[in-house]
């Protein structure tokens, strides 16, 4: 305040600063592009023969050049992950000269950490990301296709949903140790109380009208707000993950999947409007529990249904035992649909030796590791062989419906849109869904969302993959 005599130097400093910032802005623009192409080593791919997935992209050259330490940016540092890394380092890693270092970034801000790392050119070698992050990461060149690292034989061991989720622009970028299961947990005793038919598979899911009747009957029988939808999870990935299926089951979608250039006629299609209007009517009629402060109302309070993913299974099973059943989400006209996808492994573009990274991804997606990671997450193991061994995921098992839905992907378990625009679409749909639950006019809200999504796609020049 008092040193007005230093005005001049200050002005100079500011000018210099602005120049520096502008200069750095220009240069950072160009380096960001530089990182993307990089690492595909053009060495002879030699020995491998059979029909490889995208074998034309020679990501791996079949040999590890020298001892390396690679960073794994994980979303969790819990036992199963730490164990997998330890086992790798002590086993195949030791033989190959590869050491993996686990860096736990947590789930909440994972995407921000990776974008931040990319902006400062310090990407970790292995990225363990939630399914739909992939497409934007791939568009930005943060990750590279697995190319010839992975054999067709290996690909065939996975649930089709996992491969679908890992594919962007026809290239396989990632593999997961597990997939997610989404459905409606119900109390068998409550359903029997109101004489409700219990659907066995998505094909004979309750129609929306049938489900409305069941909800109303339950309410009449004394259950207040019978449908718990985990409103306490708040804005974020859960809403598009769990509730985009309403739009899809109504015959719409979040976006036109042919080219991913517009949401018009999809997110605001008549089917989508009708389906969401039906859902809104449940809220208006007090059939939906919006007051839950956590995700345990299904077991602590009297809710009859819980619209939630696989991760609540262990808690629910412990509390309800044999009374717990899994039923498909209601059919709003175009068949019962469900969300899918979860955390999966990919190779960043900042990799010196892709073979070393692949050695770890390959290890983390083998039966033993898949078994322990999926069990820890309470999720659906990604390998068909592991699924067959687990009675809970086999015919007659508690969670068999998950497997059937995932095997019927993308018809029943619908992957989130495989476009770099997904981040924006997710935020928009999360908002829209909250507004609709809050009582907003459905058609108007969806039209506005379509307008916003289309504007974003346009301002990103169609999110077309860079050459």
């Amino acid at each position: 305040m008092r040193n007005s005599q230093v005005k001049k130097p200050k002005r100079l400093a500011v000018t210099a600063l602005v120049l520096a910032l502008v200069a750095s802005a220009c240069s950072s623009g160009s380096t960001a592009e530089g990182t993307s192409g990089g690492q595909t080593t053009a060495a002879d791919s030699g020995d491998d023969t059979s029909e490889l997935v995208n074998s034309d992209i020679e990501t791996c050259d079949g040999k590890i050049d020298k001892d390396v330490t690679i960073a794994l940016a994980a979303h969790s540092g819990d036992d199963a992950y730490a164990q997998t890394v330890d086992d790798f380092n002590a086993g195949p890693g030791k033989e190959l000269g590869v050491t993996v270092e686990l860096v736990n970034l947590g789930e909440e801000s994972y995407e921000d950490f990776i974008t931040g790392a990319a902006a400062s050119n310090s990407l970790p070698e292995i990225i363990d990301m939630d399914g739909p992050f992939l497409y934007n990461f791939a568009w930005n060149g943060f990750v590279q296709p697995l190319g010839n690292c992975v054999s067709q034989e290996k690909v065939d061991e996975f649930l089709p949903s996992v491969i679908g989720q890992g594919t962007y622009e026809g290239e396989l970028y990632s593999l997961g140790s597990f997939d997610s299961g989404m459905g409606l947990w119900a109390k068998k005793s409550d359903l029997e109380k109101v004489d409700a038919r219990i659907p066995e598979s998505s094909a004979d899911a309750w129609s929306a009208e049938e489900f409305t009747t069941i909800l109303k009957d339950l309410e009449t029988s004394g259950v207040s707000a019978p449908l718990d939808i985990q409103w306490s999870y708040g804005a974020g990935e859960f809403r598009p993950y769990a509730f985009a299926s309403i739009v899809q089951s109504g015959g719409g979608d979040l976006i036109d999947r042919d080219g991913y250039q517009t949401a018009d006629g999809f997110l605001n299609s008549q089917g989508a409007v009708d389906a969401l209007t039906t859902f809104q009517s449940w809220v208006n009629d007090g059939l939906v529990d919006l007051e839950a402060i956590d995700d345990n109302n299904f077991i602590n309070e009297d809710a009859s249904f819980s619209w939630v993913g696989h991760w609540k299974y262990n808690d629910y099973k412990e509390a309800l035992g044999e009374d717990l059943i899994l039923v498909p989400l209601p059919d709003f006209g175009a068949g019962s649909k469900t969300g899918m996808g979860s955390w999966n492994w990919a190779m960043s573009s900042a990799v010196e030796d892709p073979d070393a990274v692949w050695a770890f991804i390959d290890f983390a997606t083998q039966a033993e590791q898949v078994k322990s990671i999926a069990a820890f997450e309470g999720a659906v193991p990604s390998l068909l062989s592991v699924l067959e061994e687990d009675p809970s995921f086999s015919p007659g098992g508690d969670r068999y419906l998950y497997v059937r839905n995932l095997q019927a992907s993308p018809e029943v378990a619908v992957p989130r849109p495989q476009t770099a625009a997904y981040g924006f679409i997710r935020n928009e749909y999360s908002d829209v869904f909250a507004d609709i639950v809050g009582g907003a006019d459905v058609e108007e809200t969806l039209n506005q969302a379509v307008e916003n999504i289309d504007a974003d796609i346009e301002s990103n020049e169609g999110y077309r993959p860079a050459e």
Partner: protein
Amino acid sequence: MMFTAVFMVGPFLYAVYLSFTNRKLLSPLPTRWVGFENYIDVLTSSDFWAALKNNFVFSVVTVPLQTGLALALAVLVNQKLRGSTFFRTTYFIPITFSLSAASIIWSVLLNPSGLFNTVLEIVTFGQFTPDWLNDPRYTMAAVIIVSIWASVGFQMVILLAALQGVSQDLYQAASVDGANAWEKFRHVTLPGIRHQLFFTLTVTIVLSFRLFDQVYILPPKPGGPIDATNTIMVEMIQASGNNQIGKASSIAVLFFLIVLFLTIFFRRFEPKDY
């Protein structure tokens, strides 16, 4: 000074530059100069004006209410009574909380069957128990309640210090002249603290425009439900969260101009010394 230049003026000028580009946070596409496109986008979007309106509603209600309450509390805890230190501390404690953490606690308290409504139910004989956070009609009110709770202590402390700076001689003189309590307050206290009062008013206005943490965390979605508590800060954060750095920068520049204008405007009412 150097510090101010590097960490405040510099980034601001950079934001001005960015606001004229189509810069994304990260994108393989090159950054282009787009002139006033971002500004036109923002100023023609109904969301921006709705957010600005919410900002004004919040300020118009909060500023007088909060300042008045702060003054009342300051006068109360300024009494030479037993326990006044306890009350001073109690009213000031919320200031030491992180607003985002407090918002999470409040979201539980404001649950339709939470503590807040349980008390209301008793007081109003069950006549008034709104769903504060999910019903768009009440959410702004809830935000105002939380905001006042969270920051009234700050104004109170400034005003308390001001009150203690008013000479006791003046009160004694007033008593000699036969002034009652209200007259003393009106003609001794208020003039004595007018500078600090003006300061708190200005600061409250500016801070109230920065409304963010509460409206980001309390409602079912940031600025919700249905944009009932959307503010310019939320608009800005959401634009940058959506990768649109250019657009977010243009909102930041507009926001700066609005607050600058308000500050200059209120400066005209600054009390002069006679």
